[in-house]
């Protein structure tokens, strides 16, 4: 293999990895805030992809133009799921962990069924867009524009997240994460913070959805594929760590690209999964997890 081919593989892996990081960071954020794993995270992605597809079809605008609208919509979806489902799951005394897992699993199945019911199991794709199908050539290396756009969006989102952590709201999030009871004394409404946290988490994965919709097939099960990768990414980086999600996302993207070189394409997920097991074997809380 030539050096050029290797750089090609690594560059594609890096871009995909940044997108994986963007998919995963919302999950990690929510967990960091309240110790809940949202097993419907992949389904949030799926909703965002369908929303992008629908809006593009309806307004005939470009996916990039409708993205802010989708992100706003996903913020509402996330906040609504917290208020309507997760708030109750957190209230239970018995089997709290299990209730959280299975109520969000139930939600995931419900959303999948809903997508099948309203949109049929057919595979859809956005046929034409500004970026779709275009590639950038850099000294013999070809990079698809949608992935470049995704990578840049992801970096921008992580930069924005690190800025948010310095604002008052960011401090309220941090304080609520530290001590849920004490924040009430200084006038922070715990439920409001959690709802916004869920909104933010869903908005981030929604942003990733608007990118994926440009170059990936949209169907009711699409969330399951990316969902599994998101769980592995978050656990690899350490639950609750935003920086960990970024690093782990890039690692997952690179390892996946390299695995695809060595093993048959049907086995490309094995590399990521094996890496994950190897890492948690030595670091049971992931690369940057607390505990």
């Amino acid at each position, binding site marked *: 293999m030539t050096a050029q081919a290797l750089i090609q593989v690594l560059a594609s892996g890096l871009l995909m990895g940044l997108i994986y990081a963007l998919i995963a960071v919302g999950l990690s954020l929510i967990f960091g805030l309240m110790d809940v794993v949202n097993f419907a995270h992949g389904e949030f992605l799926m909703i965002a992809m369908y929303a992008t597809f629908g809006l593009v079809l309806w307004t005939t605008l470009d996916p990039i133009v409708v993205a802010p609208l989708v992100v706003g919509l996903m913020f509402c979806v996330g906040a609504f799921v917290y208020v309507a489902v997760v708030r109750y799951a957190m209230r239970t005394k*018995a089997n709290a962990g299990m209730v959280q897992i299975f*109520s969000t699993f139930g939600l995931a199945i419900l959303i999948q*069924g*809903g997508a099948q019911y309203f949109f049929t199991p057919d595979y859809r794709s956005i046929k034409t867009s500004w970026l779709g199908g275009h590639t950038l050539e850099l000294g013999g290396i070809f990079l698809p524009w949608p992935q470049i756009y995704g990578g840049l969006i992801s970096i921008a989102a992580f930069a924005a997240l690190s800025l948010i952590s310095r604002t008052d709201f960011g401090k309220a999030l941090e304080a609520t994460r530290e001590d849920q009871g004490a924040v009430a004394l200084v006038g922070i409404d715990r439920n409001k913070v959690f709802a916004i946290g869920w909104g933010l988490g869903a908005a981030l994965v929604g942003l990733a959805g608007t990118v994926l919709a440009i170059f990936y097939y949209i169907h009711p099960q699409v969330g399951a594929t990316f969902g*599994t990768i998101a769980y592995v990414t978050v*656990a690899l980086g350490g639950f609750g760590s935003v920086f960990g999600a970024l690093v782990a996302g890039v690692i997952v993207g690179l390892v996946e690209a390299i695995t695809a070189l060595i093993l048959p394409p049907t086995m490309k997920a094995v590399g990521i999964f094996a890496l994950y097991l190897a890492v*948690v074997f030595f670091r*049971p809380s*992931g690369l940057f997890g607390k505990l």
Partner: protein
Amino acid sequence: MTDATLSSLKLRGDAFIAKRRRQLVVAAAVFAAVACLPLGIRDVYLQNVLILTLLYAAVSQSWNILGGYCGQISLGHALYFGIGAYAASVLYVNYDIVPWFGMVVGGVLSAILAVGLGFMTFRLKGHYFAIATLVIAEIGLVLVHNWDFVGGALGIQWPFGTDSIWTLQFARDKVPYFYFALGLLVVVWLVTYFIENSRWGFWWRAVKDDPEAAESLGVEVFRSKLAAAAVSAFFTAVGGGFYAAFVSYIDPESVMSFRFSLLFALPAVLGGIGTLWGAPLGAAILIPLTEITRSYLGGSGSGLDLIIYGALIMVVALAKPEGLLSLFTRKSGGKA
């Protein structure tokens, strides 16, 4: 210790023994009643639903040994189910070895694998453990997909033969499968019943409630988890072997996909984890409901069956976190 406290202890002991006896009597009555069902139900479709209900009750009870009693939530039991199904199928189709033996081989392989994997995963806590089990099962699924010796993506078709109890093939009559599935459930139930009151049973519950405290009191936490995993994996695999004989055709997706891992956990969760009757009760509600909604609403791929399935899981998990079994037990009573 005064005589009064001694006698009150003795009374409580007697009450406990009486309760254990009562549980056995209730079980005998319930299983005997279930055994009579095929006399009244002649419809093949309904018999199918009953067989699946009993099978999933048994497998979910096996999951419950690790997930409910020992508190280690596995989202990857499809791996063991698949190993059982494949062991029985490969041994029968390629080597003419009867599935009775193949199931046990699958069970032993799964138990060994569960212990091996346990060395890796039982250091992990909470969500890290659940996701590791999910990931391991996914790796298994991908490997079987790419393993030509076991049929790869095409799977394994059992040959058509004459009906025989040895080969567990009954083309015309479903009733023998019904009794096998019931037998499996009875065996797993009895194993759970006896373990519940053994040293392992107490250790498992201690590990579930507070592993650090258990460790400090001399419970061998790590070994407890390994033992629970081995027993749980063994019976899950036996269930998988039976399933393969029952449906006569398996491929990786139809026995090892994540859908199954969820399906094994759900009855126990819905009915009540760490209880003797939670998994059977959960299966008796969940399986007929999902099978029937799938036949009547899901055939066209409309997704309505999934909507009902998902909503049901959510509602029960939120409304009855202790499981539906708590509806039947008295207010004072923790576990039935």
